[in-house]
């Protein structure tokens, strides 16, 4: 059994190494988010349609998150909603059957798996850096240069630790999302290939001859066992849908906590 972990379809574009599989799924994610968002707000009615009701609920949830961030708190709602929608769509898109792309020879899907864009550390690191810049910028916008005074609190020699916090926060944000999605994909890959790697046709034919007494053809038994074994990752796939939602929520909640920490009055 072969593993392709952290391998990507690298293409050289304008002197830069680009992960093409991540880029394609990233653009598909953005297209889905923009399409459904436009569809939801394009035809606003007093009695909402089903899609509009979903988006209204999302807006309500994140408005209640930013309510206690002071009078300017409403300003931070759009970035939270954008992060949440992007991350959850990106996580869920990995559950689509991208393996079918292997039938097209010009897509080199065998070099790297087409999967969630969030299983590339570059994407999650970019999201985390957006969060870092955003919460520092919103703090500076509200308090001016006085925002940086919090580095020297409570006493001056805590400064390195306070600065370390600004490194650790985006690092853990990026790593948590990346590693959760990657771990789920590895789990699905391992469970999907487990039975096929353990079985051998000789063992099955010996089993049919000795134990079953040859009442069933051994290639039938072998194929049926392979099919049943390929159903093994199904529960994990359902669990991954749950994990996708939880991780998007955790990322967004931590972002809102960092922003409200940056804009809080001391």
């Amino acid at each position, binding site marked *: 059994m072969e593993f392709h972990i952290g391998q990507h379809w690298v293409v050289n574009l304008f002197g830069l190494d680009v992960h093409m599989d991540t880029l394609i799924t990233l653009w598909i994610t953005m297209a889905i988010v923009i399409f459904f968002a436009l569809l939801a707000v394009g035809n606003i009615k007093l009695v909402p349609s089903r899609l509009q009701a979903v988006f209204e609920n999302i807006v309500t949830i994140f408005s209640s998150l930013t309510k206690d961030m002071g009078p300017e708190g409403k300003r931070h709602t759009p970035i939270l909603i954008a992060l949440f929608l992007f991350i959850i769509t990106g996580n869920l898109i990995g559950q689509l059957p991208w393996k079918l792309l292997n039938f097209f020879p010009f897509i080199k899907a065998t070099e790297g798996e087409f999967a969630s864009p969030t299983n590339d550390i570059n994407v999650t690191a970019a999201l985390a850096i957006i969060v870092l810049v955003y919460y520092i910028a919103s703090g500076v916008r509200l308090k001016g240069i006085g925002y940086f005074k919090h580095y020297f609190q409570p006493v001056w020699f805590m400064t390195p630790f306070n600065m370390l916090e600004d490194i650790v926060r985006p690092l853990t944000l990026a790593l*948590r999302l990346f590693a959760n999605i990657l771990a789920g994909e590895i789990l699905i890959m391992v469970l999907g290939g487990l039975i096929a790697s353990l079985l051998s046709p000789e063992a099955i034919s010996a089993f049919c001859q000795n134990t079953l007494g040859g009442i069933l053809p051994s290639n039938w038994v072998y194929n049926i066992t392979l099919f049943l074994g390929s159903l093994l990752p199904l529960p994990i796939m359902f669990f991954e849908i749950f994990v996708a939602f*939880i991780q998007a929520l955790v990322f967004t909640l931590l972002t809102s906590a960092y922003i409200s920490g940056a804009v809080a009055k001391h």
Partner: protein
Amino acid sequence: MDLSVLKFIAMGLAIGFGVVGPGIGLGLATKAIIESIARQPEVEGQISKYFYIGAGLIEACAIYALLVVILIGFVLK
């Protein structure tokens, strides 16, 4: 000893010791939520969302150990 053998030993030790702490943490979190729901069954809908978020945060710690295992086994030469 061969270096690849040491690598497998390191992978096993890293994930083995790495999941002990999150396991204890998840156990404590589950214990707490079950106790509070048993005391006040009507708060289940309000507190279970915090449990899910907390469980996601705790689980991430075990996944950091898995990340180290992947780094040892597949990325670092």
